[in-house]
C-alpha cells in the first residue's frame, strides 16, 4: 500500500453534512426535552416531600431534637401522644408483619398485618395498617426522616392515624417504634423525641422495610430504649 491509496481510501466515507446537521438538531431537541423531564421529576419529588412534611399527621407526630438534618421537627413524646389522643388517633402495641402489598400515594405505603393488637387509647384497631417508607417511586424522599423500624419478632408501638386525618388513600397510617421485651425503642425512624425521659441506649437488631436502609439512617442519632410502662404513664397523663 502506498500513501496515495491510503488517503484515497480514507476520504471515501465522508459524512453527509445535511445528515450530520439533521442528527445534531434532533439530538439537541431530545436533550432539551429530557432535561425538562428530569427537572419536572425533581420538582415533583420536592413537592411530594413538602406535602409529606406539612401533613397534619406528620407534623403532629414529628419529634426528636436532631432537627432538620434527620427530617424531624422537635415535638416531645408527651406532646406527640397528647396530639394523637386529641386528633382521634389510636395508640396501640401490636405485632406487625409486612404483607408485601404497597400503595403509592404521595409516597409509597407498605401494608402491615397487625396481630395481638392491644389498644392503649383511641378507637380499637384491628386488621391491617400502613406504614410510610418515606420513599417515592424514584427513591428516598429528600428531607424525610429515617423511615420505619420495628422489632425483629414484629413487636411495635404505634400511633394509628385514620385515613380521614392523613388524607391518604389508605389507612390507618401507622407511626411506629419497635417494642423489644418491655422496652420501646425510639429513634429518628418515626421522628420520636424522648428528651427528658429515662432511657437506655439500645444496640440490638431491628427490622425495617427491605431496602429502606432505615436502621442505618437512624443509627447516627442513636436508639433510645424507654420502658413501655413509662410510655403508658405518659399516655394516661396526656
Amino acid at each position, binding site marked *: 500500500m502506498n500513501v496515495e491509496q491510503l488517503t484515497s481510501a480514507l476520504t471515501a*466515507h465522508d459524512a453527509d453534512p445535511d445528515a*450530520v446537521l439533521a442528527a445534531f438538531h434532533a439530538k439537541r431537541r431530545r436533550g432539551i426535552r429530557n432535561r425538562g423531564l428530569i427537572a419536572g421529576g425533581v420538582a415533583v419529588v420536592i413537592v411530594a416531600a413538602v406535602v409529606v412534611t406539612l401533613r397534619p399527621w406528620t407534623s403532629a407526630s414529628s419529634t426528636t431534637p436532631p432537627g432538620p438534618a434527620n427530617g424531624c421537627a422537635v415535638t416531645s413524646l408527651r406532646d406527640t401522644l397528647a396530639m394523637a389522643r386529641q386528633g382521634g388517633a389510636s395508640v396501640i402495641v401490636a405485632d406487625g408483619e409486612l404483607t408485601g402489598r404497597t400503595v403509592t400515594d404521595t409516597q409509597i405505603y407498605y401494608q402491615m398485618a397487625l396481630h395481638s393488637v392491644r389498644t392503649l387509647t383511641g378507637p380499637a384497631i384491628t386488621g391491617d395498617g400502613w406504614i410510610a417508607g418515606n420513599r417515592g417511586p424514584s427513591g428516598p424522599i429528600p428531607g424525610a426522616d429515617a423511615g420505619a423500624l420495628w422489632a425483629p419478632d414484629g413487636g411495635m408501638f404505634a400511633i394509628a392515624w385514620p385515613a380521614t386525618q392523613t388524607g391518604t388513600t389508605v389507612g390507618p397510617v401507622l407511626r411506629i417504634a419497635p417494642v423489644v421485651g418491655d422496652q420501646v425503642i425510639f429513634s429518628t425512624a418515626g421522628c420520636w423525641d424522648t428528651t427528658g425521659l429515662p432511657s437506655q441506649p439500645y444496640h440490638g437488631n431491628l427490622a425495617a422495610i427491605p431496602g429502606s436502609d432505615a436502621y442505618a439512617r437512624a443509627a447516627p442519632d442513636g436508639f433510645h430504649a424507654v420502658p413501655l410502662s413509662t410510655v403508658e404513664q405518659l399516655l394516661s397523663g396526656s
Partner: protein
Amino acid sequence: MTFDDFVRAELGALTKFTGALTGDRALAEDILSDALLKIARRWRRVAGMDNPAAYVRRTVVTTYLSDRRKDQRRRTVPAGDLATLDRPGPDASAAVIARDEVERLLAGLPRQQRAVIVLRYLLDETDEQIADALGCTTGTVRSHLSHARAALRLAATPTPKE
C-alpha cells in the same frame, strides 16, 4: 464567531475528517453530531480558543474513541454471504481489488491506530499535535504509527513531518 458560523465554515472538513476516522458514513454522521452537541454546550469557551477547529477535531476523536459501547448497540452484523466478495467476477479489476485490500486493512486497525493514521496522513499533523488530540505521549503516537504502518503494509516513505 457564533457556533452556527463555525459549523457553516468547518462542516465540510469535519465530515471528511470524521468519515476517514470511522470508515463508515452512518457512524461518522452519528459521531460528528454527538461531538457537535458537546461543542455547542461549551461554545462560549471554545470560541475563545486560538484554534477552535483543532479542539473540535479533538472532541471528534475522543467521541469516536469512547464510542465503543454505543457502537456495539448501533452496528449491525452483515447477514449476506461475504464469501461472494472473494469470488472472481467478470468486472473485477486490479484497482478494485487493491482498494478492497486497503479498506480491509484499515478496518482491521484498532481505533487509536486508525486515529493516528488519519491525523498524520490526512491532516498532516505532527506527533505533538496527534498526542494532544489523543491525550497521550508522543512516544505512544510513534508506537501507534509504527504498528499501524506495519499492519497496513504501508510503504516506508516518510512524510515531511517525521
